[in-house]
């Protein structure tokens, strides 16, 4: 039997964020963060990377936990949305530490109450045991995935390596210049739809940015995170919006999404004031569809508006042939699932269409 061995590395186990940041700064690109390890370790076993050092966040207590918190952005007052309730002194949102395990997030009473959509999405990640191991930060910083990439070395020897690992062509789109590996993690589309904000930390200092700005549409370097930066926490504002998440995949456990749909809508007096429509697993970043959002806003979110939003999402999505289910099917399902998710979020009965 072939045993998949991990390549040799040293493990540094800091107790504080500052120590972890120092270790990353000191070892440079030869170091890699590990939190739950449920993505890093399979990829190391597949021979997709060989870092000299893994810096573990498992012992960094301060990165764990969920608490009420105010907007971390310095200019937060200028950024209030139109339907955001005037400050009542109540907490404006919750902050989730990056090393919080997924099962803790799912079970947290504040999360379940304010953000049932987060619970819904997390309950569909991987398996119950993997959710006890995997963390929120690891999910948000998950590597992009592709049928030609997440394969053991022996498989890739046969098929030939690609741009994302030591090769120079893309096997999915051989004529092109870029890598189309997909961001298949489930939390990114949901938290982008909820307008989440992340705090990154490094030995150089802190940065606060919209979660959407953590990503770019490039399968090779899909994160704007610098190699020495640590995602410390994510803040999710309570907008009173209604949200939904739907996931397409072959089996209803274990499998990554071949399409994820996250929507959030704010409706006041029958008029949709704000909408977020974000697709997962069809691009190298969480794909927000402004045209679909515009189709819903400043009008009643009725069947016509929902159909227009679903059509706009269909137009924007260009899944490639690098995930579990065929791209044509996934694209058709964008239209179907965006409409379903919007009806679910708006509390409308499922359509028979």
């Amino acid at each position, binding site marked *: 039997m072939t045993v998949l061995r991990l390549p040799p590395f040293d493990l540094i186990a800091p107790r504080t964020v500052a120590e972890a940041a120092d270790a990353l700064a000191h070892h440079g690109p030869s170091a890699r963060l590990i939190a739950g*390890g449920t993505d890093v370790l399979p990829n190391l076993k597949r021979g997709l990377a060989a870092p000299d050092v893994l810096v*573990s966040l498992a012992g960094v207590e301060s990165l764990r936990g969920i608490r009420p918190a105010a907007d971390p952005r310095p200019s937060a007052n200028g950024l209030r949305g139109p339907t955001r309730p005037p400050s009542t002194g109540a907490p404006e949102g919750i902050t989730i530490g990056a090393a919080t395990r997924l099962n803790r997030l799912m079970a947290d009473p504040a999360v379940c109450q304010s953000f049932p959509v987060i619970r819904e999405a997390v309950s569909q990640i991987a398996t119950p045991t993997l959710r006890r191991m995997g963390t929120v930060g690891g999910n948000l910083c998950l590597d992009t995935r592709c049928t030609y990439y997440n394969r053991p070395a022996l498989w890739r020897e046969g098929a030939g390596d690609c741009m994302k690992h030591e090769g120079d062509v893309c096997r999915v789109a051989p004529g092109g210049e870029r890598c189309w590996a997909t961001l298949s993690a489930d939390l990114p589309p949901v938290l982008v739809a909820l307008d989440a904000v992340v705090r990154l930390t490094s030995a150089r200092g802190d940065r606060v940015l919209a979660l959407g700005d953590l990503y770019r549409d490039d399968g090779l370097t899909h994160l704007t995170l610098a190699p020495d930066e640590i995602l410390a926490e994510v803040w999710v504002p309570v907008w009173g919006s209604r949200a939904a998440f739907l996931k397409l995949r072959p089996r209803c456990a274990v499998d990554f999404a071949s399409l994820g749909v996250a929507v959030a809508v704010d409706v006041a007096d029958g008029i949709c004031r704000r909408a977020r429509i974000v697709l997962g697993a069809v691009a190298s970043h969480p794909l927000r569809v402004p045209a679909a959002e515009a189709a819903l806003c400043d009008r009643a979110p009725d069947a016509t508006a929902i159909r227009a939003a679903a059509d706009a999402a269909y137009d924007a999505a260009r899944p490639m042939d690098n995930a579990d289910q065929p791209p044509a099917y996934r694209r058709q399902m964008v239209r179907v699932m965006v409409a379903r998710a919007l009806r679910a979020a708006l509390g409308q009965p499922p359509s028979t269409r």
Partner: protein
Amino acid sequence: MPPQHGARRTITLAVNGRAVEVRVTASRTLLEVLREDLGLTGTKYGCDLGECGACTVLVDDEPRLACLQLAVEADGHRLTTVEGLAVDGTPHPLQAAFVALGAAQCGFCTSGMLMTAKALLDAVPDPSHEAVCEALAGNLCRCTGYVKIIEAVRLAAADARVPGRPEPAEVAR
């Protein structure tokens, strides 16, 4: 300090109630250490990638995939493997129920199923059919079709010897 790839460190594990010391490098998984260093081959090596659940063990009573757990990160923790389920030669109620219902065929998934189910019963003494299905969602079986496994977990839950069970009941035949 420069990285010491081959550097070994001594870790202490409480395996099935017995303290053991092992010298390991950072890149060894708990699965490798259990099977290769401690000879505890009841924990199975399935996919080695987190996809099958065959390697499930309990770390401080919580299920973990031993193939994705670095041994050094288990230093100082309590481990339970399938070898630790029986007490003084008496099978755990789950093992008895698996035997009674024929819930193991080739047996490759069985130890992972038993460990995951043990954690479930320790937390929820009388789980519903749905709760058992949900808890075992990450444990793949290529033989049984799952029906017998799920029945066996619920049969074991009806066994008086499962801690937390309110009133005694007979193991139905």
